[in-house]
């Protein structure tokens, strides 16, 4: 049944997050970006929202609520409306934990998930992106070779979000023994950050999302027990894992675009030129209308992908559409946002130039979040 209606509970969560974004993320965003550091205490603060634990099974100490990509789409949009860099940091534990919950065996869930139901902040991370100008998430150079009851991982990863502090890395690799390529060849392995052969590289310096810690990573013949192959014999549903990340990026990009629009409207009404508010010029007004049209369209595409995931349907197509569409539109909207502010859009007194950098950065890192 086609329905655009969030449940009462979802409305509640959305309002909580909207407030949290407005009061915690937005005020701290600029300083965090300039300092290239997360605000002190931010991770603990966001941990208290219980975003991760709530949707983890009661069996591992979680809230036992159903995994809801739909709810998470609302959550990520609101967080990114505050700030996309801080949103990604806050969402990092979920990215890892939900992947374990979706694809892990009961044993793996029991072993790995309890930490994410505790009162203390904990995070793992997903290492998928590789250093190539033609990076494609389905064509990985990081390989996993079976060796007895172990797997040996070798390769390089980039932009591993929170990799500087994550205790566990979920490394996406190509299974050397896979007959075909594409999704079927993808496997995921839980690698302790301390494992021999793992080198955490230096902090990535990015165009945008500067507050977000991300590192490069080298895997040199890293041996992991077969038990750490996510999903065991069965392996993972790589289509779902990728769809979850893409839809998540889409939700973040939607929140970012909405932030631009909602900042631009009062600015354009307040700013005067040639005898009237610039919002009274059709060129500006229609531009704002365009932003409004597109943020709606962006959200519905994300929701559709989320709904498919919630129904355990293959969402490869829907999630790809959600990401490619939101990426293109968020870029345009943040770009137009700078233009609406003119010279003031180019200086760092206003957040718009930061959102412009965030949009471009976020939209090419399509496998760093999950919902």
């Amino acid at each position, binding site marked *: 049944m086609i329905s655009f209606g969030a449940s009462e509970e979802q409305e509640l969560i959305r309002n909580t997050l909207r407030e949290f974004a407005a009061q915690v993320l937005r005020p701290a965003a600029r300083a965090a970006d300039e300092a290239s550091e997360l605000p002190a205490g931010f991770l603990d603060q966001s941990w208290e929202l219980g975003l991760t634990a709530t949707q983890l099974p009661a069996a591992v100490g979680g809230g036992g609520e159903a995994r809801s990509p739909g709810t998470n789409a609302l959550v990520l949009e609101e967080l990114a409306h505050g700030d996309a860099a801080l949103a990604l940091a806050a969402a990092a534990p979920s990215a890892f934990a939900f992947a374990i919950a979706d694809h892990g065996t009961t044993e793996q869930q029991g072993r790995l998930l309890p930490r994410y139901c505790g009162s203390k902040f904990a995070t793992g991370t997903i290492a998928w992106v590789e250093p190539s100008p033609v990076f494609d998430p389905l064509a990985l150079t990081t390989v996993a070779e079976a060796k007895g009851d172990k797997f040996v991982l070798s390769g390089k990863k980039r932009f591993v979000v929170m990799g500087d502090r994550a205790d566990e890395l979920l490394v996406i690799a190509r299974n050397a023994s896979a007959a075909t390529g594409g999704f079927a060849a993808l496997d995921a392995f839980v690698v302790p950050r301390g494992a021999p052969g793992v080198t955490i590289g230096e902090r990535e310096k990015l165009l945008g999302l500067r507050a977000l810690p991300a590192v490069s990573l080298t895997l040199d013949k890293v041996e992991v027990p077969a038990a750490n192959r996510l999903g065991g014999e069965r392996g993972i549903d790589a289509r779902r894992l990728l769809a979850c990340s893409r839809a998540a990026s889409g939700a973040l990009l939607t929140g970012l675009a909405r932030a631009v629009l909602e900042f631009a409207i009062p600015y354009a009404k307040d700013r005067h030129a040639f005898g009237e508010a610039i919002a009274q010029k059709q060129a500006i007004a229609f531009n704002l209308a365009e932003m409004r049209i597109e943020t709606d*369209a962006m959200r*519905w595409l994300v929701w559709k992908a989320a709904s498919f995931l919630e129904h355990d349907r293959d969402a*490869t197509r829907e999630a790809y559409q959600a990401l490619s569409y939101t990426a293109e539109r968020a870029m345009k909207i943040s770009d137009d946002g700078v233009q609406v502010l003119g010279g003031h859009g180019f200086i760092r007194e206003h957040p718009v130039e930061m959102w412009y950098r965030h949009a471009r950065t976020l939209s090419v890192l399509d496998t760093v979040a999950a919902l």
Partner: protein
Amino acid sequence: MIDFTFSDRDQKILDYVRSESLAARKYARHYDENEHEFAPDELPEAANFPGVFAVMRKPGPEDSGPMVMGMLIAAGQTWGDYSVRVRRGRGAGLGNAALGASGTAEQKAKWGPLLLAMAITEPGCGSDPSLVQTSARLDEATNEWVVNGEKIFVTTGCRADGAVVWATLDKSAGRAGIKSFFIPKTAPGFIVAHKEKKLGIRADDTAAYVFKDCRIPRDHLLGGKEEIPRGGDSGGFRDVMKTFNMTRPATAAFGLGMSQAALDFTREQLEAAGVDLAYGAGVHGKSAAADRFQRLEALQEAAMLTVLNAAWLSQNGKPNNLEASISKAKGGGAVREITQGCIDLLGPLGVSREHLIEKWFRDVRITDIYEGTGQIQRLIIARTILDYGRGELK
């Protein structure tokens, strides 16, 4: 709860509509090339199609609601052809919607069964109602309205039994003076000037009317309110806006049905020629054709979802004036880009009249023009989000 999946009743209905539309599509080219003809109210195939609601169980709580399904069905029908139907529904004219929105109970009962066109636009005025020149003068002696003026772009204007016509009681009063009248074709002085020759939807019946001292009984004023309100809009104008609130998402859906047809045809052709259109890989795992095609598919999806949102809102009794304009603006632009892009991908074959895609390219172009152009929709959207009145944003 947020849900974008179809119940199996939803799916069965849409499948049924497609099969019916496919049957109608066989006649699409003929009525495009012979624009003076009208498609019959029933095609020979009608016998095989009892009608969707004849074959469907009653909707349950797990099924999509009537307005949402209405949009999907509308798109499913134009997917076959904009004008040709296996069985043309009666009383489906825009004028009927206007009657429903602003007629009295008695008027609805009396004229509802007729097929009513909606006559608004005039040679001199596009989307600006304050420029309406068609006048209605009350002849106290005979208790009749005397209507004079010209109307163009009247959809289903030739086949309709009558029309809901915008006329002004007092030009000096601007919008406020505008009222809607029901005028039957039988009224003296009602002249159907000609059928318009168009870029697309040629099989469709778009007429130009002339009213020459056309006389209708006094009770033919919709809603019956004859006084001109001081300041602000007249009931007539507001009522038409009400109508638009229902028709904007529908017109977008009409267009998106045809752009979907273009996408389906293009996919078929490209896949037959060996182009891999599978999703999953990023840009570096794709051919140029797949990349371009998938962008068009995403655009189609995005536009259709704004239509469903507008419908879902009114289905749930929520205000949808903003969302109706969003869906119309988005749909109107999307169908242009999609049909243009599909032909670009098909190359020479795309511009040959041996296939229907060139027709869909022509037919969809009306979407961003009628029922308020994309510019008008953006004005409405901008005024709403900026909280501006007509004076602040012109």
